[in-house]
Each structure stands twice: as structure tokens, then as C-alpha cells.
């Protein structure tokens, strides 16, 4: 007997005492919890995102499309970045003013090569206000998961309010589980020493989040 059959057989025997229940799953679990906590006003949701990001030690900046290139250049310069990884599909205008050498995200680049690059600039798929979370799904302007991991400085641009949702349930609705997803809430941290939080371990120790007001601009491209 294969272990597959053995385990499935044990499960079925273990449940022999349980009365049969064909309730459809949608009805089996009461979802009486809230879809979001608090009101839905876009301005306040963005303000909450900014506050929650800052709470976990991300540096939050606001700008509009005209001011973005200067801001990105300044953020890179402030970290002394000589090189920056650029994911495919990133708006070239974002880095137009940056002095750092742009290095494209290529499948063949090794982790060691990535380790020599100072910063990375990306967009995101969605941002969650309540938890101060950015979610990247590898779509245009986001790149492979490792490029936002190995360099020590991450600049993440969030289009507000279009990419901002209030809550975790709202975020999951927008995401495609087939894509590789990374949820980022502040710079890397640990609670392993005396159960107290310390920021900065293996992931980027510096996280700059740019809230890009695009109220009149075109809607963000949906993740491909």
C-alpha cells in the first residue's frame, strides 16, 4: 500500500464517527467578521496607510507624477546608491533624474550579483491600509521576488488611491493566487531576542514608500 493510500485510509477511518455533512462550504463557515474596519473614505484610507507604514518604520513620502523623478533620485542619493535594480515594465520616467546606474532584472543574474546592487525601485500590486502592507505580485514594474529582497534598500511606489484597499479581505480579492506574491509590512524585523521587535535582518533594512497621487492620471495597469 502506498503511503498516500495509507494516509487517506487513516483519515477516513478517523472520521468514521463524524456524521455525514454535505453543507456547501460557502454555508459551512459563518463570515460575520467585518470586511474592513472603519469607514471607506479614500483620503482617510490613504492617510491610514501612511500612518501604519510609518508605525513599522517604513519611510513614507508623498508626491505627484511631476515630482516623482526628483523624489526617487533624492531617495537613492540619500542612501548613497550607486546602482539600482530596475524591474521590467517600470515607467522609465521614474528613474529619469536618478544618478545611480540602472541594472535590469534578468533571469540569469545570480544572487551574488544582486547582492552587489545597492537599491531597487518597484511599484506594487496593492497596498493594505489597516496593516501597512505592500503586496507585490511580479507584475509590470515589480520584478522577480528576489530583487526586493537582496538589495538593502527598497523604494516602493504606490499609486494612491487606486492601489490602496482598507483591509486584508479586500486585498485578497484583488490578488491572483497563481502569481508569486510577497506581502511586505515595513523593513525586515525580528522578535527573536527577548520577544522584542528589532528592525533590520535579512531583507532590505531600509524601505521608502512613495505614495504617488495619480488622481487625474490614467488608472494603473492591471497586473498581467
Amino acid at each position, binding site marked *: 500500500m*502506498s*503511503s*498516500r493510500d*495509507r*494516509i*487517506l*485510509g*487513516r*483519515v477516513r*477511518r*478517523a*472520521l468514521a*464517527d463524524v456524521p455525514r*455533512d454535505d453543507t456547501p*462550504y460557502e454555508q*459551512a*463557515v*459563518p*463570515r*460575520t*467578521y*467585518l470586511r474592513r*474596519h472603519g469607514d471607506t473614505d479614500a483620503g482617510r484610507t490613504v492617510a491610514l496607510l501612511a500612518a*501604519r507604514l510609518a508605525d*513599522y518604520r517604513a519611510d513614507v513620502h508623498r508626491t505627484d507624477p511631476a515630482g516623482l523623478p526628483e523624489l526617487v533620485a533624492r531617495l537613492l542619493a540619500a542612501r548613497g546608491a550607486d546602482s539600482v535594480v530596475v524591474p521590467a515594465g517600470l515607467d522609465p520616467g521614474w528613474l529619469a533624474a536618478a544618478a545611480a546606474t540602472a541594472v535590469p532584472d534578468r533571469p540569469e543574474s*545570480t544572487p*551574488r550579483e544582486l*547582492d552587489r546592487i545597492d537599491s531597487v525601485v518597484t511599484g506594487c500590486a496593492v497596498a*493594505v491600509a489597516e*496593516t*501597512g502592507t505592500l503586496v507585490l505580485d*511580479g507584475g509590470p514594474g515589480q520584478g*522577480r*521576488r*528576489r530583487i526586493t*529582497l*537582496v538589495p538593502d534598500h527598497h523604494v516602493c511606489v504606490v499609486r494612491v488611491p487606486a492601489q490602496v484597499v482598507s483591509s*486584508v479581505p479586500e486585498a*485578497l480579492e484583488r490578488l491572483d*493566487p*497563481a*502569481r*508569486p*506574491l*510577497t506581502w511586505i*509590512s*515595513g523593513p*525586515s*524585523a*525580528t*522578535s*527573536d*531576542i*527577548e*520577544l522584542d521587535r*528589532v528592525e533590520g*535582518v*535579512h*531583507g*532590505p533594512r531600509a524601505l521608502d514608500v512613495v505614495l504617488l497621487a495619480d488622481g487625474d492620471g490614467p488608472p494603473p495597469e492591471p497586473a498581467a
Partner: protein
Amino acid sequence: MSETFLGMPSFPAFPVAARAAVQDGTLRGNLRHATHTIRAKRAKAVAELPDWAELREAGRRIKDHTLRHLDRYLVQVEEAVTAAGGTVHWAADATEANRIVAGLVRATGESEVVKVKSMATQEIGLNEALEAEGIRAYETDLAELIVQLGRDRPSHILVPAIHRNRGEIRDVFRSEMGRWGRAAPDGLTDEPADLAEAARLHLREKFLRARVGVSGANFVVAETGTLVVVESEGNGRMCLTLPETLISVVGIEKIVPTWRDLEVFLQTLPRSSTAERMNPYTSMWTGTTDAETADGPREFHLVLLDNGRTDTLADEVGRQALRCIRCSACLNVCPVYERAGGHAYGSVYPGPIGAILSPQLRGTASAVDASLPYASSLCGACYEVCPVAIDIPEVLVHLRERVAEGGRATREGSTVVLRPARGHAVERAAMRAARWALTRPAALRTGQRIAGRARRLQPRSLPGPGRAWSASRDLPAVPAEPFRDWWRRIYGAGGTAAARPGPGGDTGKDTR
């Protein structure tokens, strides 16, 4: 088939191990500081969500539903992961799981792996099994690194090195890091930020050269085949994305049916665990990506682990332990854990959840497993904070019954009838005698009178087993007359103490 293995050799019974821990002032201080720090933070993080009770109930129901239809969901996981480019393996016990993982690593030609913190791989003793095959496993979670470098044992689910303070961690880093790779920086201080930096430097070279990663998973979504790993440091992301091959060993109880179900647990787990609104990093992946996307490992293996879980599932009271999402909130609030420490539980699963999980996964035959159900004052703080509402006191009492009275249980898929534990014969006789007396009020009254008459002879300390009480506590004074004799004297058997009109009157007092 081998015995279920939880990664550790035989251990003394809980009270014996706890005695040493209680007397260790440094350990007591470390545990007290850490658990009290996180307790207050958790309470604050939970209080932020007005719908916590509803989230908790939904979490409980999702897990119960999944367990009730686990065969169906296991097959669904297998189909979805396979369709997404992964390979699924089934392991009935620890030995089989270790053999599968070792074989997969050997097939890559590599002799080292980087590991994400995983309870399942600790439970099966994977590192030791790989070592025996000439494969070195590097733990990359900071606390796991501390434990591995210090040749120590984990003592907490979330923070395996919780029993170590910053000074002790610095000493371990200074003396041991060099033997495993990059040595600790000169002049390393005990500042947590400096310690974290030392770990970053030490591990980075291992991440960058790693070709094989090994992980567990917090959740597996049946409908999509998606695995979820929740972490803080980024070591998880390193292990999950940089290597060419990823092997995930996952207990069969980690399944949730739908993508949407994550909306419950991604709210309850971080707040219960590290007391954060959201942990710094969560990775979700579904099989492998195509050559064009080329994001992450090209090969993905999922090892579905039983190792006593189906035996636990067979117990109608005990199966709720399989709802556990390993948040460790129950450890952090437990007054027994705080004083006894994690090692006393003799398992990679310490604390209240360990006290109900280990004796079910491993059975109650060993000294430590037979003692774990009693390692609780039944105060109920664990149940109160559990984000999936596991009634730990209920299961503890149920397992006490299994130890004391014996009865039917399932071991390795077969029903067995357990005999009452040998060490409990005197207790059993005493319980029976007490029940006999207490179902006869006259016998109770006789006993009370004898005690009342002998009260002047009452010693301050008791001999024999009574010393367990009197070593630290005086005995209560026995009154001259039990209440029932007083009542009979004042009101007569079957009499009534009548309500007294107006305040102040007080005929009920014993003045006669």
C-alpha cells in the same frame, strides 16, 4: 513502521524537569521578561479589531470543516500543486518524510540546504536525519540559529531561543559562529540590533550559495495549491526564492479550503503571534513559475506529513488540537510555561498546546508524555487567547482520563485499548474511595468528625506524598465542627434559615 518521532530522545516527566527550571533564576527572569513583554502587546493588537470574536469563530469553523473533509482536501491539494508544476509526496511518519527529503536533496547533487524555521521539520528531526546522510542543514531563522549554534534545544514555538537573553546570545555568537562559517564581528555587543547584524552577515553567504531550500508552511490552499509562509526576518524569502530546488514539509492539518480563507488567518495569526498587525514578510507561491517568468525555484516538492496527525484526528475530543496554527499565544500567557520553561515539555511543541499535541502525536507511553496532560493548573488563559478556540483545558482533562483510566485510542491508524497508567494505582484507589465516601453523606460526616477531633494533633508538615503540599505551604487548620454539624445544631436537619426582616437583625449567627 517506526515510532512517531518528535525530534528528541527520552525525557524525564514534566514535574522533574520543571523542578530544575523553577530553581534557575536566570531562566525564570528571561522567560518572565519575554512572555510579559509579548502579553501586553498581543492584548493591544487584538483589541484593535472589534470583530476579533467573529474572526476567531470563523477560524475555528474553517479548520473544523477542513478536518472533517480532510481526505477530499488532501486530494485537492495534490491535484492543484501537481497542476502548478510541483511534485507531491506522502509521508506516513517521520522516518518516511526524512527519507524522502534526503533522497530529493541527494538527487540535486548538493550536500547542504538552507532552512526556513519549520515546526514540522523539527518534529521529524530532519536536520539530524540529513546529517546522517552527509547533508548539512543550516537553520536561518535567528532564534533557530541561536539554538543550532549553541547545540541547544528549542523551548518556544515562535522564538525557540526564548530561554536565552541577549548576553547569552552574544556569547554563543562569539564562540560558535566561526565554526559554521563567517565568524562574529570583533567586539560584538549584546545590543539586539548588533546581534541581528551579526546573523545577517553570517547567513548571507549561505543564502547566496544555496541551491536547495527546505521549509514548512503556515497554510496550504486546497483550491489553488498555494503555499503560504509567514515570517519576519526575510530568511524565509531567501530560502523560498533564491535556491533552485524547494522542498516543503507540511503537516496534513495545514490545509485551508479556499483562497478567501486566508483573510481570516492573515488577520489572526500575526496579532496572536508577534503581536503585529502584520508580520514583515509573507510569501505565497503556487507550484513553480514558467521559464519566462523564472521567479524562484525551478523545482518544487511538497511532502505531506502524517506522523500521528491521523491518530489525533480519530479522537473526537482531542482532534481540535489539529486546528492549531502555531501562533504560540498560549505559551506566552501560560503561568506554568512561564515558570517551567519550554524544555520541561520534552518536545518541540512546548506549553499548553504542546501538552495536548505531544501526547496525541506520540502517544502517552513515555514518562514525559504521560505527565504532560497534568502540566497545567487548568486556569484557562490558553483557551481565552487561542485564535482558533482550541479548548486546551478540555483536551488536557480528556488526556488525563486516557492516562488514568486507559481506554480506546488510535496508534498508527489502528485502534488500541490502553491500560491505565501504572503510576496512577494509588491515586485511582484514592479517587474511588473518595467517590465512595462522597456518595454517602454519613461517611463524609464521620470523616469530618474524626478530622475535627484529631485537629490538635495536626502536624505542620506531612510525610510521604503529602510533602508535595507541605514543602511550600502550611496546612489549613481543621475546624472543631464542620458546617453540617453546626447547621444541624442550629436549624436541624432539613431546617431552613429564615430571612430576617429589615437590616441589622442577625439571628443566623452562631451564638448558641
